C-alpha cells in the first residue's frame, strides 16, 4: 500500500503553514505552478522566521562580524575564532524557547543537543556549555514546573553527553510568565586546518544520512517556533522533539573519527526543519542540486509520508557528502558506534532540489531560490521613547541599608544559583578552572600548558526594555567585562536575540535599536559577532517578553596561573574600587527589589571608558598584581563586595565615600570592578590606575567575619550566606513565602 503524498492545497492549509497570502503568491511566481503538499511543507520550513531571518536579516547585516581572529563568521553551523598555536574555538548560542515552554525537559534537552551538534559538525570537540534561562515570576503557577523541567533537561542532556556546563544565567520576571527563554551555548576546540563546512562540492557524489532514525517528532517545529502562543499550546506538544544524549555522544565520537579519515567533503547537522534545511543548505552553498530518495531514509515509524520525513525534527541526525572511495571505511565507523549510515541521495548539477518517494517525484524545486528568494522584510519600526535623566537625589533612601543588602542577596534574582548549577556536571573533562559562581566560566585548553578560555553569557533585559540601544550596548559591555574580570582578552561573541512579535512596530523598534547598540559595542570593544540566532514571536496572548538579546562571549587567557577569581583573597588584603563611585539608580535592582519600582533610564555605557578601565585591569591581572576581582553589575558595589566576601569566606570593612549612600552602595554605573590586592601592592596599583586615567578609590581592608560599611551597614558573613544560599532551594522545595523583612 502506498503512502499518500497528495493533499489538496487550500487557503486554510497555506495559513496553517504560517505562510501569508503574499508569501504564497511568491511561491507561485517562483515555480510557476501550485506546489505539492511536500513542497508547501518545504517552503514553510525554509521561509519561516526561524530559518529565514526574514524580519531581522536587514539589521543583522549591520553587525561587525570580522576581525583578524575570526576564521568563520555567521552563516555556518557555528562561528570559528583563532586562539593561536593552530587551535581554534568554535561556538554558538541558540534558543529553544517555545519547545521548552511546551515541554520543559525535552525542550531544554534538545536545545542543548542541537547546539552541541552545531559545534561538533564543524569538527570541534565540545569543551564548554552555558545556559541562559529566563522564567516567569516565582509565584506564577507554572514557574516552578518550568524551572524544574528545564534544569533537569539541560543537565540530563549535557551531563550524559559529557560537556562541562561552566556558566549561564537564571532570571525571573513576570514578563516571561507565558514564554520562558532557554538559550543554550556550546563551544568546542578544533584545529584550524581541520574545520568542516556545509558547502557541498562535486557532482554525482553520495549524500549520506548519519545518526539516529527519523520519526514523526518535531514535524513542523520550526514553524511552531515562529508563531505566538495562545491558550491552545498544549496541542503543540507533539511538535517538540525528544532527545537521546547517548546517541548524540556516539554520533560525536563517530563524526570526529570519520573526519580524521578524510572521507567528509561537507557535513551539516539536521536541526530545525531537519532533512529539508540541511540538504538545501549543502546544495545551495555549493551551487549544486540535491536529489534525495526517501525510501532509503532510516525511519523508526511506519508509513511516514514524504512531508513528514522532510519536516521531521528527530534529533541526533547529520547529512554528509562523502568521498565515494571512502564509503566502506566510513560505514564501518558508524556500525562500530551502533548508528545508522545510509546513502539517501546524490549531488547533481542542475540546481534542483528533487525528492523521490515510492518511486515518484514529490518535490522538484529550485534549490538556490529556496534560501535566496525567501521573503525579506523591512518591517515598520518605532523609535523607542527615552527616559528623562534620574538623579540619585530623586530616588528615595531607606532606613536600614543592611536589610536592603540582605534583600538583594536573597531575592529571586540576586540569590545564589547553586541549586541550578550543581545539577550540571561542571567538572567533566578535567579542564574546568572556574565553574559557575564567578564572573565567567574558565576551562584550560587541553594540550596547552598555560592557555585557557573564558566564557560568559549576559544581558540585562530591564535595561533593554527601558532603552533598547543602551541596553544592547550594555549586554555586550557586561559580557566583555565579565571575561576581562578573569584576565581574559575577549575575542568574539555570539548573539541570541529574543524578542516579541516583529510585526508590531514597537517590538521591531526594540530589535532595531538593540542591534544598533550591540553592533556599536562589539565594534568599540573588538568583540565581533561570529554566530547567533534570532527568536521572535516570544509572546503569549499578545504580551511580549522583555527584549532579551543574550550575548555569549569567549575570551582567551594566555596564562591561567595569573587568572583572577572572585574569592581568592584573605585577611589584610586591600579592596579597591576601579571605575568610580556609584551614582546611577535608574532601572537598578535597588529600585526594583528594595523599593518595588521600575523607572528612569538604564545606566549609560561609555564604550571608551569601558575599554580603558577593562584594559587597565587586564594588564594588572596579567602582571600578577590582582589577587581577586569581581565586576560590578546588578546591585552595585556593595553586592559585588558581598559576593566576593562570601566566596572568600572573609569579611571586609569598607568606606563608601562621600556620595549619596544608596547610590554609592547600589548604583549600577558601568565599567566598574572591585579588586583585591596585597597591602604591599595597593599604592602601586592606585598609582598605575591614576596614570592610566582610571578612577579608583581604596574601599578598605579584608578581615573579620562581617561586611561593614561605616555606620551604614554591618552584616555577618553567615547572615549573608544564609540569605544568598537559601532562596533557591526553599523556592524549589515549595516552602517559599514572600520575604517580610524587605526594607
Amino acid at each position, binding site marked *: 500500500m502506498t503512502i499518500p503524498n497528495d493533499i489538496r492545497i487550500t487557503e486554510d492549509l497555506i495559513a496553517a503553514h504560517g505562510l501569508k497570502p503574499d508569501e504564497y503568491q511568491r511561491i507561485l511566481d517562483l515555480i510557476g505552478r501550485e506546489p505539492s503538499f511536500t513542497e508547501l511543507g518545504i517552503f514553510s520550513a525554509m521561509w519561516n522566521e526561524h530559518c529565514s531571518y526574514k524580519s531581522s536579516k536587514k539589521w543583522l547585516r549591520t553587525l561587525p562580524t570580522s576581525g583578524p581572529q575570526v576564521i568563520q563568521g555567521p552563516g555556518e553551523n557555528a562561528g570559528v575564532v583563532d586562539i593561536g598555536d593552530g587551535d581554534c574555538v568554535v561556538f554558538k548560542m541558540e534558543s529553544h524557547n517555545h519547545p521548552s515552554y511546551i515541554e520543559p525537559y525535552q525542550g531544554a534537552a534538545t536545545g542543548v543537543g542541537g547546539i552541541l551538534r552545531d559545534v561538533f559538525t564543524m569538527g570541534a570537540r565540545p569543551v564548554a556549555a552555558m545556559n541562559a534561562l529566563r522564567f516567569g515570576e516565582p509565584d506564577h503557577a507554572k514557574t516552578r514546573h518550568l524551572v524544574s523541567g528545564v534544569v533537569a533537561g539541560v543537565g540530563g542532556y549535557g551531563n*550524559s553527553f*559529557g560537556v562541562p556546563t561552566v556558566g549561564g544565567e537564571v532570571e525571573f520576571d513576570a514578563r516571561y510568565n507565558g514564554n520562558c527563554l532557554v538559550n543554550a551555548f556550546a563551544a568546542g576546540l578544533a584545529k584550524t586546518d581541520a574545520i568542516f563546512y556545509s558547502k557541498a562540492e562535486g557532482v554525482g557524489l553520495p549524500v549520506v544520512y548519519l545518526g539516529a532514525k527519523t520519526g514523526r517528532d518535531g514535524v513542523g517545529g520550526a514553524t511552531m517556533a515562529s508563531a505566538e502562543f495562545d491558550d491552545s499550546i498544549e496541542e503543540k506538544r507533539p511538535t517538540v522533539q525528544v532527545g537521546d*544524549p*547517548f546517541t548524540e555522544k556516539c554520533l560525536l565520537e563517530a563524526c570526529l573519527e570519520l573526519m580524521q579519515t578524510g572521507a567528509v567533503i561537507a557535513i551539516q547537522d539536521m536541526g530545525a526543519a531537519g532533512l529539508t534545511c540541511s540538504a538545501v543548505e549543502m546544495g545551495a552553498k555549493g551551487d549544486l542540486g540535491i536529489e534525495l530518495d526517501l525510501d532509503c531514509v532510516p525511519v523508526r515509524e511506519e508509513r511516514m509520508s514524504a512531508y513528514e520525513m522532510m519536516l521531521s525534527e528527530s534529533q541526533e541526525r547529520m547529512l554528509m557528502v562523502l568521498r565515494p572511495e571512502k564509503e566502506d571505511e566510513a560505514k564501518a565507523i558508524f556500525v562500530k558506534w*551502533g548508528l545508522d549510515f545510509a546513502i539517501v541521495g546524490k549531488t547533481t548539477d542542475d540546481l534542483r532540489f528533487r525528492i523521490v518517494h515510492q518511486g515518484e517525484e514529490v518535490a522538484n524545486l529550485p534549490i538556490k531560490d529556496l534560501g535566496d528568494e525567501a521573503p525579506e522584510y523591512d518591517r515598520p519600526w518605532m523609535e523607542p521613547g527615552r527616559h528623562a535623566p534620574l538623579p540619585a537625589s530623586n530616588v528615595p533612601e531607606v532606613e536600614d541599608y543592611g536589610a536592603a543588602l540582605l534583600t538583594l542577596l536573597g531575592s529571586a534574582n540576586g540569590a545564589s544559583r547553586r541549586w541550578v548549577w550543581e545539577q*550540571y556536571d*561542571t567538572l*567533566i573533562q*578535567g579542564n574546568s578552572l572556574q565553574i559557575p559562581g564567578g564572573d565567567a566560566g574558565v576551562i*584550560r585548553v587541553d594540550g596547552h600548558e598555560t592557555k585557557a578560555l573564558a566564557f560568559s553569557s549576559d544581558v540585562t533585559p530591564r535595561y533593554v526594555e527601558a532603552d533598547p540601544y543602551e541596553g544592547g550596548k550594555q549586554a555586550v559591555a557586561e559580557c566583555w567585562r565579565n571575561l576581562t574580570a578573569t584576565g581574559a582578552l575577549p575575542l568574539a561573541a555570539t548573539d541570541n536575540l529574543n524578542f516579541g512579535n516583529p510585526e508590531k512596530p514597537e517590538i521591531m523598534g526594540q530589535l532595531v535599536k538593540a542591534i544598533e547598540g550591540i553592533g556599536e559595542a562589539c565594534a568599540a570593544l573588538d568583540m565581533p559577532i561570529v554566530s547567533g540566532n534570532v527568536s521572535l514571536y516570544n509572546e503569549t496572548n499578545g504580551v511580549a517578553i522583555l527584549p532579551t538579546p543574550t550575548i555569549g562571549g569567549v575570551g582567551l587567557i594566555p596564562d591561567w596561573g595569573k587568572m583572577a577569581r572572585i574569592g581568592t583573597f584573605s585577611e589584610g588584603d586591600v579592596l579597591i574600587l576601579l571605575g568610580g563611585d556609584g551614582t546611577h539608580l535608574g532601572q537598578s535592582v535597588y529600585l526594583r527589589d528594595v523599593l518595588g519600582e521600575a523607572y528612569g533610564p538604564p545606566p549609560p555605557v561609555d564604550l571608551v571608558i569601558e575599554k580603558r578601565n577593562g584594559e587597565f585591569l587586564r594588564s594588572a591581572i596579567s602582571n600578577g598584581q590582582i589577587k581577586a576581582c569581581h565586576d560590578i553589575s546588578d546591585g552595585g558595589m556593595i553586592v559585588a563586595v558581598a559576593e566576593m566576601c562570601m566566596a572568600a569566606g572573609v569579611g571586609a570593612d569598607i568606606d563608601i565615600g562621600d556620595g549619596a549612600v544608596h547610590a554609592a552602595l547600589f548604583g549600577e554605573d558601568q565599567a566598574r570592578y572591585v579588586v583585591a590586592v596585597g597591602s604591599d601592592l595597593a599604592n602601586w596599583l592606585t598609582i598605575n590606575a591614576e596614570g592610566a586615567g582610571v578612577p579608583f578609590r581604596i574601599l578598605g581592608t579584608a578581615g573579620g567575619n562581617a561586611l561593614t560599611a561605616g555606620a551604614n551597614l554591618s552584616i555577618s558573613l553567615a547572615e549573608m550566606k544564609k540569605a544568598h544560599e537559601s532562596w533557591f532551594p526553599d523556592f524549589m522545595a515549595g516552602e517559599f513565602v514572600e520575604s517580610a523583612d524587605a526594607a
Partner: protein
Amino acid sequence: MKAAVILLPGLNRDRDMIAALTKISGTPPVTVWQTDTAIPDVDLVVIPGGFSYGDYLRCGAIAARMPVLDAVRRKAAEGVRVMGVCNGFQILLEAGLLPGALMRNASLHFVCREVKLEVANADTAFTRGYSKGQVIRCPVAHHDGNYFADADTLKRLEDNGQVVFRYAEGTNPNGSMHDIAGIVNEAGNVLGMMPHPENLIEAAHGGDDGRALFESALDLAGVAG
C-alpha cells in the same frame, strides 16, 4: 605497572581517566573496547564514569552484560586490581563483582560538587597512599549514587573493613547508607567508588587529593608497602 581502561559507548569520563593515569604513571593506559573478549596483561583495570548505553535501563545493567565484562570478571578472579568509578562502580555492582546497589540520589537530582571523604580503610591496594581516618577532598558528579545494601551485607562490609571511603563532615551528597562512598570486594582487589579522584590530581583541579589513590593502585614509588 600497566593499566587498561574499558571503553563502552556512553562512558564520558574515559578521557579524564586516561589523562589522569597518563599524567600520574607517565604511560598511557591501553584501551579495551566493549566487544573485546580479552584484556591484555595489565596490573590495573579501570572502568571509568559516564552513562554507558545511556543508562537507559538501570545504570550499568546493559554494560554488565557486554562481552568485555566477562573479561573483567576473569581478571578480577585472577586477583588483578579492578577499579570502577561512578558508572564504573554501578557496572561492577550490576556485574556482581561488588555487593549492594546504587539508587537514585535522595534529592532525586543529579549532583556535581566537591565533598569530603574519610579514608575508612588505608590497608588496601588502592588506599595505601592515605592514612586511616584521613579526610580528603573529592568531587562527585552523579544521579544514582545512593548506596544501598541489606543489613547483613552492610554488617559484613563493615566487619571486613570493605568500606574504604565514607562521605565525611556532613557532605553525603546522595543519601548513601553508612555514608558509603567506596567499597572493595572481600579479596580487596576490586574497588568501586562514586566520587571522581581523577578530577582532583593536579594544580589546575585546585588540588591533588585523588593522586595517592592512583599511585597506590599502580604501585608507584613513594607509596608505602
